[in-house]
């Protein structure tokens, strides 16, 4: 029952997990965001893969076409892409502020600085 019929999903899952891995393991905040983007984009591909119909065309009504791919995943993913860019821009803005107030964007250094201020006086 395991066949190549699902190859598209599996490749997409691999990409998704590579993005997820980058997101978790990276020490640099911007690389984390890139990982997040890859993770999300792969999820979008998962959705779009589910919407594809063999022999279908893009869901724009035209003369002489019988089969269309499913438009609903497209709509959902349009929304999700917008959510993705919104999150990315907010995250990048946060990174800029973090750089300005900590002087670094390496997670371990930020944690060290936080540790110092945890033990020092608190605002």
């Amino acid at each position, binding site marked *: 029952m395991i066949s190549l019929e699902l190859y598209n999903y599996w490749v997409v899952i691999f*990409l998704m997990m590579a993005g997820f891995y980058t997101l978790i393991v990276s020490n640099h905040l911007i690389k984390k965001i890139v*990982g997040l983007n890859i993770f999300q984009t792969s999820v979008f591909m998962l959705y779009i893969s589910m919407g594809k119909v063999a022999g279908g065309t893009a*869901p724009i009504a035209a003369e002489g076409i019988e089969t269309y791919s499913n*438009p609903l995943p497209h709509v959902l993913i349009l929304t999700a892409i917008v959510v993705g860019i919104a999150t990315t821009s907010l995250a*990048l803005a946060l990174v800029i502020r973090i750089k300005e107030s900590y002087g670094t964007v390496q997670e371990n250094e930020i944690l060290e600085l936080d540790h110092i201020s945890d033990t020092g006086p608190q605002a």
Partner: protein
Amino acid sequence: MSSINLLIDIVLLTMLVFTTIAIVRSRSLFAIVMLSGIYSLLSANIFIILDAVDVAFTEAAVGAGISTVLMLATIGITGYEQKKRRTISWIAPMVVVVITGAVLVYGTLDMPAFTDPSAPIHQHVAPRYINDSPTEVGIPNMVTSVLASYRGYDTMGEVIVVFAAMIGVFSLIGIREKKSEPIHAEPPARPILQVMAKFMIPFIILFALYVQFHGDFGPGGGFQAGVIFSVAIILYTLTFSQQDAMKLVPPWVLKRLASIGVLIYGGTGVVSMLKGGNFLDYSVLAHDPIHGQHYGILIIEFGVGLTVACAMMLIFFAFISRGDKNP
């Protein structure tokens, strides 16, 4: 799926895999950001192969365009290189990722085969969109009719998300207005770029308008148009200067317009409510439901375009104005 499409699909997926591996392994942030732009472009191609033209359009404009620009602006501030770090254990993350991936693969085992037309996903809700939307809503692009009418409320949420991101960016790094004279009195001249930009910008804006108002018939719509429009201004900012661009489209105007765009969308819903329909029920906007749908979709797409264009420009200005401070 025809064999040529299959072939293209497999080639693109392979390229995606290589790009991803390169991103995971690379240390140079600049390379990582550019590769992530490439990743977006490749995935946009995949979306085209899988018939999602609207999505491909958006992904190319957003993932490869705006988000790469914003990331470049950010690494311009934070620096291009990652420092060597002490060795952090990669085992725990790897275990988490492998388990997650395994659960997903396990989940796909019972899914219908890729592109199977008899899959349940194509049976229940989707047929009505495909069969009836051209007559019920009256426009050929089913994605637009689902987006703007059947699931119009989601799209309103999407506009609000963009608005919320704009608020967030604005709160974090607001736009720095430079009152004093710029330090570099005369920026190095870039005649070729400036002439070309002047030539291109009208075309870009024309294209944005086309995408905005042609979204009912072809791929496109308010969101894509908004992004393209903002790209025109971004190009102007990059080739001339931020002061010039902000004289052209002052931030305080953009702020108002972004809010107004949301209100146009919501206002359409409120008007349809006052006219006796439900929220966002465009059928009551005109005597004929089909005409009502047409007007409704046109108006809300305009609202979407307005908010997205203004929000993107504002976000871009905010990022750029931070960059100049610490070069």
